[in-house]
């Protein structure tokens, strides 16, 4: 497969790549080098892309978190006027949108990008440049969304319709600022990023696996991420339709959601939630995957019921499509729809419960080491359960008529998203940090991080259950005295600051640990005595991932190369991780070359967005960037043709002058790999 064995070039993997020759375009040279800012901006390396997803998402997390703090300050006491109603509505809308689309989704994408190729033993994803494109499209889309806070006045022009932005309140008549245009266009842009990345990762999972890595030997995390990508693949177009309708309504006076023309506002709700419910599983499944990797390692046991874990994930992904109207129980659907959706929603508790029990069974009888990663993982098991159980109470449709749009719902989804998705992602941070950066995060700080976060989290969102049941509506910029809301709101506000402190400690921990690591021995490839293929190479992961292709024979291949199980069930070490792992020092590995074009292409999109909102000339500029990006892209071989390496010249296409049209240029270099690392092989042709 994608692994090079023979060193065709005298090149150390760790060394900077050689200067690239001028490209056929004649104007621009190909980006080169693997240090410095440029090497990050133009990289197509899935690991760097993964890290950038993470860094950018943390930046947005800070924004979304500060917005959350503003909400909590406003609601700390009744009748507060820290934020005006106008600002408040924008703040909670951008908080929701930022957290969902710019924090949790990309954090999951960070893990997907970094880990999928490693876990299946591949060199890179199927289409490395498309991977870079997804990152930049998403990131520029995110900046575009956030820019609405500044453009046209500080907090005057941000979306203000709530994250699900119901019709017809999202129309120009009711929301005359440009905010909702930003919402409609920004989410389309980030949606393109998600879609491209979904296609890419699906192909990667299905097609780039190492020898012997059958689907049912893939780690649970890879499985969950694969399911997530399928959900994205099919869910993104649905919201795209809704957003197009909205955009046409707002910009060109179409009549999709205009009740005065007899349109049905519920169309938006259906489309939004057909996307939106799969979306919530898009948020949670990656974390389910992460803790399925962490818990076995720190229990010293294999995951309990591997196949059941996989199938329950598939079941969740599948059933997630049939429940969307549980967000619409009070919208005025007929009784049959409400009953059907109520029942289908309840069923989802079953596969999710199966997962919970399997994690517990994995821990049962194990040797549990509660370091920070494990604490976060176990935190997910208990905290997510709270959120899931409140979800079940919403699924009871008559009861939901009392609960919906109150803080009880706010409590539910923060428990599943913060207590499930986000805690899981933190578990992942602590777990894979040494793999990505070559040093472990400090445990003392880590424990402070965990405990502050979990205590703050329960202080913040626990009381919201009570508030909701006491009848406090959500999305209210203030509340009156006398309804019994004062105490718990204050508690929640205090809790939010505790969370802030917790996350801050995480950030500090990064720097503290980095500094301490200088005085510590290197972590080695396998600091946790772990199980997946990603630990079978040096830490931090070398640019080429693996020195040679790994042939996989079972689930947890790496572990079984270290340990043997006797007939009586005792475990024997046969090798250390260091011995089994590849040194990561292979030379001459041919890698896809960096490229400017994904970035250029992606940069065009926000301009088109601004153009649609403000001035069509900007669209022209954006269109030109997109065109330049795509033409540059197809002119440019995915691979650097000048980085010749033996054994490939016999394809003999190089004498053609590749300066003509895109198809030809790409096609002629296709044998070099096109955008496809699968054909990167130096092995003998398959025959």
């Amino acid at each position: 497969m994608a692994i090079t064995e023979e060193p065709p070039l005298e090149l150390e993997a760790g060394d900077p790549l050689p200067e690239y020759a001028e490209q056929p375009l004649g104007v621009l040279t190909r980006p080169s080098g693997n240090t410095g800012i440029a090497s990050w901006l133009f990289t197509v390396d899935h690991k760097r892309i993964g890290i950038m997803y993470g860094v950018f998402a943390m930046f947005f997390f800070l924004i979304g978190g500060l917005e959350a703090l503003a909400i909590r300050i406003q609601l700390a006491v009744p009748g507060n006027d820290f934020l005006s109603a106008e600002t408040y509505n924008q703040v909670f809308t951008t908080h929701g949108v930022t957290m969902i689309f710019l924090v949790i989704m990309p954090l999951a994408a960070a893990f997907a990008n970094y880990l999928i190729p490693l876990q299946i033993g591949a060199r890179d994803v199927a289409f490395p440049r498309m991977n870079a494109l997804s990152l930049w499209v998403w990131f520029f889309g995110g900046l575009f969304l956030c820019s609405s806070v500044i453009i046209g006045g500080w907090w005057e022009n941000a979306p203000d319709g709530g994250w699900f932005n119901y019709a017809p309140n999202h129309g120009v008549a009711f929301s005359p600022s440009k905010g909702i245009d930003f919402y409609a266009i920004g989410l389309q842009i980030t949606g393109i990023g998600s879609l491209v990345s979904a296609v890419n990762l699906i192909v990667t999972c299905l097609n780039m696996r190492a020898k012997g890595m059958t689907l049912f030997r893939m780690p649970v995390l890879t499985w969950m991420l694969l399911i997530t990508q399928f959900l994205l693949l099919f869910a993104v177009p649905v919201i795209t339709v809704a957003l197009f309708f909205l955009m046409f309504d707002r910009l060109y006076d179409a009549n999709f959601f205009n009740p005065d023309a007899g349109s049905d506002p519920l169309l938006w709700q259906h489309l939004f939630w057909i996307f939106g419910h799969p979306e919530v599983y898009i948020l949670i499944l990656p974390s389910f995957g992460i803790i399925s990797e962490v818990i076995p390692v720190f229990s010293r046991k294999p995951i309990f019921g591997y196949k059941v874990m996989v199938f329950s994930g598939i079941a969740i992904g599948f059933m997630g499509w049939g429940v969307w109207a549980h967000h619409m129980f009070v919208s005025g659907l007929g009784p049959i729809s409400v009953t059907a959706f109520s029942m289908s929603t309840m069923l989802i508790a079953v596969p999710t419960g199966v997962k919970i029990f399997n994690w517990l069974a994995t821990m049962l009888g194990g040797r549990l080491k509660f370091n920070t990663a494990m604490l976060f993982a176990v935190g997910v098991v208990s905290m997510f359960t709270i959120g899931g159980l409140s979800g079940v109470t919403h699924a009871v449709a008559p009861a939901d008529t009392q609960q919906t749009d109150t803080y009880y719902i706010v409590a539910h989804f923060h428990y599943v998203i913060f207590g499930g998705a986000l805690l899981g992602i933190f578990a992942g941070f602590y777990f894979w940090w040494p793999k990505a950066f070559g040093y472990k995060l400090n445990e003392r700080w880590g424990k402070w991080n965990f405990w502050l976060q979990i205590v703050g989290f329960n202080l913040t969102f626990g009381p919201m259950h009570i508030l909701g049941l006491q009848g406090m509506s959500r999305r209210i910029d203030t509340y009156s005295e006398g309804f019994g809301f004062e105490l718990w709101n204050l508690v929640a506000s205090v809790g939010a600051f505790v969370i802030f402190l917790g996350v801050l400690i995480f950030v500090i921990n990064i720097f503290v640990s980095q500094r301490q690591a200088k005085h510590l021995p290197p972590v080695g490839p396998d600091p946790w005595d772990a199980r997946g293929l990603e630990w079978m190479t040096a830490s931090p992961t070398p640019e080429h991932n693996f020195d040679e292709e790994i042939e996989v024979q079972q689930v947890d291949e790496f572990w079984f190369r270290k340990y043997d199980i006797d007939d009586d069930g005792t475990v024997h070490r046969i090798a250390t991780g260091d011995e089994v792992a590849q040194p990561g020092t292979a030379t001459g590995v041919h890698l896809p070359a960096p490229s400017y074009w994904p970035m250029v292409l992606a940069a065009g999109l926000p301009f088109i967005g601004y153009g649609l909102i403000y001035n069509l000339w900007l669209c022209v500029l954006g269109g030109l960037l997109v065109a330049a990006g795509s033409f540059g892209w197809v002119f440019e071989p995915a691979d650097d043709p000048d980085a010749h390496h033996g054994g490939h010249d016999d394809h003999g296409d190089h004498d053609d002058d590749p300066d003509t049209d895109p198809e030809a240029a790409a096609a002629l270099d296709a044998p070099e790999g096109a955008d496809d690392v699968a054909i990167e092989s130096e092995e003998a042709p398959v025959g």
Partner: protein
Amino acid sequence: MVDSEVLDEQAVEAADASHSAKVGDHQPGSTGISNQKLAMWAFLGSECLLFGGLISGYLLYRNNNQDGPAAAEIFDIPFTSVSSFVLLMSSLTMVLALSAITRGDHPRTRLWILTTALLGAVFIGGQVYEFTSFYREGLGYTTSPFSSAFFTLTGFHGVHVSMGIVMLMSLYFSSVRGKLKTENAETVEIVGLYWHFVDVVWIFIFTVVYLMAKGI
């Protein structure tokens, strides 16, 4: 059209990145399938949800014409039948182009690719004509939910066809310059997949939007 542009970009990408069909070079992935084709099919699967949404929007509003013209009043079935037929035939020429290139018959390949693009262009021309005449008869984009949904659905389809024409013309020119070799048959095939898909969508639209306007 931010979205469709980039989506199609992606299609182009998948198409160009195709690799040689020479046996021996061929390095399939774990499944024995080419990455590009798999990507294209995944993308088409996703497109089903996109067009499904647009069509549902139309179905919901098809009878809500407010004070504007109704569907049955305004559709010109004979005219649309002709352009549907044209688009259908372009699928034939597309597949003939693929067949020609797998045989290594490059002149034919070019001929069929160009014919396909032309037929597509005729279809688009017909749509432009149809839109303008509807507009003159009082069916503007903002007239009614029906008109908005109709124009949006057929417009999206038209944009897809146009992107297909751009891809076909790139294929044509690369073939003219001798860059489209027999090994690149998969590129043609992938563009073809996209093209047929767009045709299939029209088969749906023609029946459900146009012909059924009489009945429901």
